[in-house]
């Protein structure tokens, strides 16, 4: 989508008007590469995923290298993020869900790092492409469903039958439950993608207004832009949090089947 759109006008609109807000989402091939006839080029999206993975790994390894009883500043940040996710898993899934903690922690830190890297000027927001978020969400969905079936066997299908409902209503309600279960990966991925894309588009459009207003007229709007950037950083954190907490809630549904 962004590629086709960017090809129409490039960084600046076709008539040389305001900058094209969609240009920032353009995927660029950095190293051309083809694997068995499939285009597997190393793109700017892949580059930022590699950077995110490296940043997280370096941060955690570097911060925890001393393992002091009285933590240094770096170590306490690492411990804070560990405790944050560990509490999230413990509160929402329970202690028997702690064996899935490494997965939730990785997911949270990866999405958070991608969102935060996207807030740097001239960088690329990987999570603003639905294929990336959908791949993450589909992995969560398939994994959670498989866990449910492995743990409960065929009884997991009872998850779709609400209890305490008249038998007459059941055929309708089961269909609704199945549909709502199947829309989970969709809503999980679209929430993250739409938030990131809408936020970055809004920043770009408003930023162009500030530039168009000039030095004198643009001072107050520039202050608003700073506030908006702060809001976007909040959203970047919040969406990573929501992604992780919904993963926990889905895990809890699969493990304990409360209904």
């Amino acid at each position, binding site marked *: *989508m962004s590629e*086709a*759109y960017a090809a129409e006008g490039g960084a600046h609109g076709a008539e040389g008007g305001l900058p094209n807000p969609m240009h920032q989402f353009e995927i660029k091939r950095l190293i051309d590469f083809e694997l068995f006839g499939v285009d597997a080029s190393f793109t700017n999206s892949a580059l930022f995923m590699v950077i995110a993975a490296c940043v997280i790994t370096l941060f955690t390894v570097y911060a925890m290298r001393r393992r002091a009883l009285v933590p240094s500043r770096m170590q306490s940040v690492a411990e804070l993020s560990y405790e944050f996710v560990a509490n*999230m898993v413990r*509160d929402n899934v329970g202690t028997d869900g702690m064996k899935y903690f490494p997965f939730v922690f990785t997911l949270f830190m990866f999405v958070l790092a991608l969102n935060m890297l996207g807030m740097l000027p001239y960088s690329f927001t990987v999570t603003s492409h639905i294929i990336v978020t959908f791949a993450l969400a589909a992995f969560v969905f398939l994994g959670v469903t498989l866990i449910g079936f492995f743990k409960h066997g065929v009884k997991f299908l009872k998850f779709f039958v609400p209890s305490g409902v008249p038998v007459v209503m059941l055929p309708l309600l089961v269909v609704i439950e199945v549909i709502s279960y199947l829309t989970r990966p969709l*809503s999980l991925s*679209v*929430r993250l*993608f*739409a*938030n990131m894309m*809408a936020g970055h588009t809004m920043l770009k459009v408003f930023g162009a207004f500030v530039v168009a207003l000039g030095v004198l007229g643009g001072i107050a709007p520039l202050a608003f832009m700073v506030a908006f950037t702060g809001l976007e950083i909040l959203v970047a954190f*919040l*969406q990573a*949090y*929501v992604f992780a*907490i*919904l993963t926990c809630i889905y895990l809890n549904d699969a493990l304990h089947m409360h209904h």
Partner: protein
Amino acid sequence: MDPSAAKLIGAGLASIALVGAGIGIGTIFGNYLQGALRNPSAAPGQFANLLLGFALAEATGLFGLVVALIILFVF
């Protein structure tokens, strides 16, 4: 009517979904504040639920945005 004009009108109509998101977010934060002022000691425990409700309400509005984008750029 010119098909491209209809497309733009459709995209604009799709963004009406934001009305619902606005009402939802307002309700969530308003009710949270109301509850938090009545019982401030219980408020921090519900902060996670507040953020969750906010994100869920916001997502429904953003689905409308996605529909608008699909209308604009896919068809």
